[in-house]
């Protein structure tokens, strides 16, 4: 866990002096080492019987004040180990990829410093054994993501996007913090073990409030409705950052948090339903928006929002394992998609408009093949990983309510469609860019991570096969974490099979639709309505309704209240202190006789005081 931090510190100290690739190699090595450690931990846990796979080891206690005990420690259980495995694993790949992608950047070592710092914060978030350190990690990933989004701060859009991500996340953080305060007020403890053991004592109302507030936090971090706007703008960051932070790891922190607090969710009333509906509606709206984007990364960004919606659907319907399963497989294929997109952008010399691409499969074969595999996986075509994980979530939704399932199913068709559109526009059809642009395949250091991720995307489904209980590896592994919070599947295997077949059909329908529309043509205005391209106008609505009016409000505060009240108050306090000090300072004359006099006066005062106490 500390290895990425060490890497980051080393990079901070010596990065500038190291030659270009070495800073990246060092950073990658540190992350890879922590991946190895994660694997070791995993094997360690695997060797134990399934009931005893929880370690809550305390390194040392940080603050003990009153009833507040804060320990620095790690909570190692199957859930957190699953998280660290895929976080460190994917981070390692993306670090390696970045060595190639960022090779021309001036602040190469700074980039890796941030990246390492991010991994460290993410691990703190995942491994912490109490809500406070989780929050530190939570803020840590937020801050590093802010730095990385606005890494190219020379571009005003990048700086603005970073700011937006930061501000929107504050709303979520507010929810998280309030929930933590409530927990502490009612339970007097913030460590996971104690909170979960005693959460049953709380009234349903309190638990529901806490669960809802945590959900607000998760909505901010995981870019759900109504706070998803920042994620799309976050694509201004370098592409590896988008892959790592805004697809595979950080945005899933909200899902992780929800899974972590499953005992609280389980006891709350109706929060699950809210989560499920927010999730599925987000999935649908974002998928619709994705059908009309022209920026290669924005399609993926909306797709990420949409997939995160699926994960929340899983959480909301009590299918925690399905949500985690989707999270892991999504991390594989979405990281692959982003890295593939990065490879395309790199090869096309910073062109991001998919309308200006086309026929790239011949020029960039490695990227094309891996990208297509990821597409088939996210589309949910059997037997790729996305089919299995999305199938689990949808089956759970069907059990809860057919309406949820229906929206989810339509979204599945849309998913296959918009990804198909992107693939056809980028890799097939006619060449639509100037032939003076020298398109080249990316170097090995970038394609090798693509191959690895492609293999994972294709076969990732093997983690949790619904064929028989024996093949549900992930479910068996995670079962002790969620315990009774997990909704048991009541779906018969035949219905399950029908649903699975339907998923496959949806994928094929979506793909067929995409190929019929986009394989030849590159412009179909009817299929790309402007309001979808503008993401239903939600962003603009925020801009008008909230950002501008609150700007005006804060302007008023700044002009009137700040100047007239706060400023004057602080200035006058400051002036008062200054005045008093300057006056008193004259006493400090530098003459010994004066000082001796003061001492005498002091002594007389003290003696005078004692005189009043004397007698008795």
């Amino acid at each position, binding site marked *: 866990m500390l290895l990425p931090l060490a890497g980051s510190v080393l990079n901070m100290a010596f990065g500038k002096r190291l030659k270009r690739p070495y800073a990246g190699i060092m950073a990658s090595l540190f992350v890879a080492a922590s991946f190895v450690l994660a694997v070791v931990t995993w094997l360690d846990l695997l060797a134990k019987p399934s009931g005893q796979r929880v370690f809550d080891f305390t390194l040392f206690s940080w603050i003990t004040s009153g009833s507040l005990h804060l320990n620095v420690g790690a909570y190692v259980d199957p859930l957190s180990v699953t998280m660290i495995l895929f976080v460190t694993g994917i981070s390692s790949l993306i670090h390696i990829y970045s060595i190639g992608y960022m090779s021309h950047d001036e602040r190469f070592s700074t980039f890796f410093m941030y990246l390492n710092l991010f991994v460290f914060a993410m691990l703190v978030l995942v491994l912490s054994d109490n809500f406070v350190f989780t929050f530190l990690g939570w803020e840590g990933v937020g801050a590093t993501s802010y730095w990385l989004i606005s890494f190219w701060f020379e571009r005003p859009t990048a700086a603005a996007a970073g700011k937006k991500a930061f501000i929107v996340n504050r709303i979520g953080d507010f929810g998280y913090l309030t929930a933590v305060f409530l927990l502490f007020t009612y339970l007097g403890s913030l460590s996971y073990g104690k909170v979960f053991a005693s959460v049953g004592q709380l009234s349903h109302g309190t638990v529901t409030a806490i669960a809802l507030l945590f959900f607000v936090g998760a909505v901010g971090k995981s870019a759900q409705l109504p706070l998803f706007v920042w994620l799309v703008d976050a694509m201004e960051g370098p592409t590896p950052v988008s892959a790592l932070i805004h697809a595979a790891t950080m945005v899933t922190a909200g899902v992780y948090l929800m899974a972590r607090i499953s005992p609280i969710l389980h006891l709350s009333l109706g929060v699950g339903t809210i989560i499920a509906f927010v999730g599925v509606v987000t999935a649908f709206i974002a998928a619709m928006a994705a059908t009309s984007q022209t920026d290669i990364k924005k399609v993926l960004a909306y797709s990420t929002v949409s997939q995160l919606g699926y994960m929340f659907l899983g959480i909301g319907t009590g299918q925690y394992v399905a949500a985690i399963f989707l999270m892991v497989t999504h991390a594989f294929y979405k990281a692959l998609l982003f890295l593939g997109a990065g490879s395309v952008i790199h090869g096309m010399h910073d062109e991001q408009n998919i309308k200006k691409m086309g026929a790239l499969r011949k020029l960039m074969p490695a990227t094309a093949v891996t990208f297509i595999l990821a597409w088939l996986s996210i589309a949910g075509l059997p037997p790729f990983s996305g089919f299995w994980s999305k199938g689990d979530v949808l089956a759970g939704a069907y059990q809860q309510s057919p309406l949820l399932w229906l929206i989810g199913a339509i979204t599945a068709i849309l998913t296959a469609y918009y990804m198909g559109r992107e693939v056809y526009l980028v890799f097939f059809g006619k060449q639509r860019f100037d032939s003076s642009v020298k398109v080249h395949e990316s170097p090995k250091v970038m394609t090798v991570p693509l191959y690895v991720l492609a293999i994972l995307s294709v076969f990732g489904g093997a983690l949790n096969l619904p064929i028989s209980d024996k093949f549900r590896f992930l479910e068996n592994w995670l079962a002790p974490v969620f315990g009774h919070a997990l909704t048991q599947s009541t779906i018969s295997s035949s219905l399950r099979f029908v649903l699975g077949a339907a998923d496959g059909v949806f994928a094929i329908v979506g793909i067929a639709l995409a190929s019929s529309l986009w394989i030849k043509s590159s412009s179909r205005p009817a299929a790309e309505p402007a309001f979808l391209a503008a993401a239903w106008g939600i962003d603009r609505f925020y801009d008008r309704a909230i950002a501008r009016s609150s700007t005006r409000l804060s302007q008023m505060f700044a002009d009137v209240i700040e100047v007239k009240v706060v400023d004057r108050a602080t200035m006058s306090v*400051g002036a008062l202190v*200054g005045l008093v000090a300057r006056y008193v300072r004259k006493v400090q004359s530098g003459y010994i006789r004066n000082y*001796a006099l003061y*001492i005498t006066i002091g002594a007389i005062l003290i003696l005078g005081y*004692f005189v009043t106490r004397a007698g*008795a």
Partner: protein
Amino acid sequence: MSFLIAQVASTTPLKFPPIEYSAIAPELIMVVGAIAVLLVSSLVPRHISKAVSITLGSLVALVSLADSIYLAFQSGSPGADKAVLAGAVALDKFAVFFYVLFSIVALLTLLAGRELMNLDRGRITEFVILVLLSTSGAMLMASALDLIVLFLGLEILSISLYVLVAMESDNDRGRESSIKYFMLGGFSSAIFLYGVALVYGATGSTNLGQIFTFLANNLLKSNGVLLAGMGMILVGLGFKISAVPFHFWAPDVYQGAPSPVTGFMAATAKAAGFAALLRVFYSGFIPFQSDWVPLIGVIAGFTMLVGAVLAVVQTDVKRTLAYSSINQAGFILLGLYAASARGVGASLYFLITYSVVIVGAFATVGAIEKVLGKSGVQIEDLRGLSKKAPFLAFSFVTLILAQAGAPFTTGFLAKFNVVLAAVSSKHYPVALIAMISAAIAVFFYLRMALMPFRSVSVGAESSAEGGMSLEDSQYGGDSAVMVKEEISIDAKSKLDSATVVIAAAVIVTIGLGIWAGPLISIANRAVLLF
């Protein structure tokens, strides 16, 4: 020979108490070490005498530290005072806590002084000897169970310090402040001694244990003499810890003394004063608690406020740090005011962390003086330091922020614990003053902490934006030009012993700020009585 001794023994009724040398071993090591340094350095060739005396002195401090730690494992449980040497000296966790503290500070001071004292070759030996002797006096103060022994320690500590302040031969300011310190110190020592006499008159003893027994078992007909004695002792010790209104010497002397000496003084002399204050009032005068505890509260409040407010208008870095250290002394007093085990534990924790911070801070200032090539650093001179000497700028900012009480430094926990103790003893008004003074203090801490990162060129305008128009703001432009010319003088800090000291202070301050548990529990275990 044996005949002679037998004669003496039979004729004189003097009985010598059994002397347990091991109990006062740290003091003895310091004294014997000082003599050894003197002898050895006069025997070795002149050109290596500096290196020899510093190395030997550091070794002495290290041995003393090792012995103190050894004693820490030997000494009794809290409260169970182990009085030795006919009840004149205590060997308990409290004394050992301070042995460790003083040994560390002495070691750091010697290492910092090696680079930063501007001395002729021969005189560095004197510096080493005086630091060691002074430390032995401080140790005696912390362990003394008898007011006379305590006075002895006080004088050993002080007289060495008077000389240390005036050591740099080309530093007129140093000599001036030494005279000031000497005269005022003598004055307050006299008051202290007079107080001891009065207490003896009232209780019939100078031994703290016997004073306690007497006060606990007898109802005084008239307590005036005793109270006057207590008051005078408080004045004498208040001078050492630079509590208001006995603080006037501190800014002048801190500014005038060479930086390593200032750091040593701010740590050792102050800690020794607090040790004595705790020892005398909490083990001797505890039956009169209701009389003196409120007074401590008043003094604590004024000390915090005056320190914070006056620091705001300072322009000299060392002077600002002096007021900051007055402010910190107020916080330590606040822990005593809480009059609970928790409060005293918090004060002890505050003392040890503050000592490390302040020694490091003054060493940093000394190093900055060296980089800038002049004695006396104005706050404005710090401008652009982060470019010139990034390590020093970083350390300076860390140590300043630690004094401001920034989280993840020891300073945060120190202030937090002290205020918490005051609140839990229901001393709300003074706790409130503490918060206010901390808020005022943040102003000047931040002003100093930000300065190294300001660029040199925008001198005039940005100094005006510091909120209040500082008196020197009109000179901002001038000093900026001066600094520019000096950039070429010495751009990089070398890896020398002063750097080691600064780095150690920074590492300890941050490290123990994060991994805080052990030191807090050590401090809590060293608490007297209760």
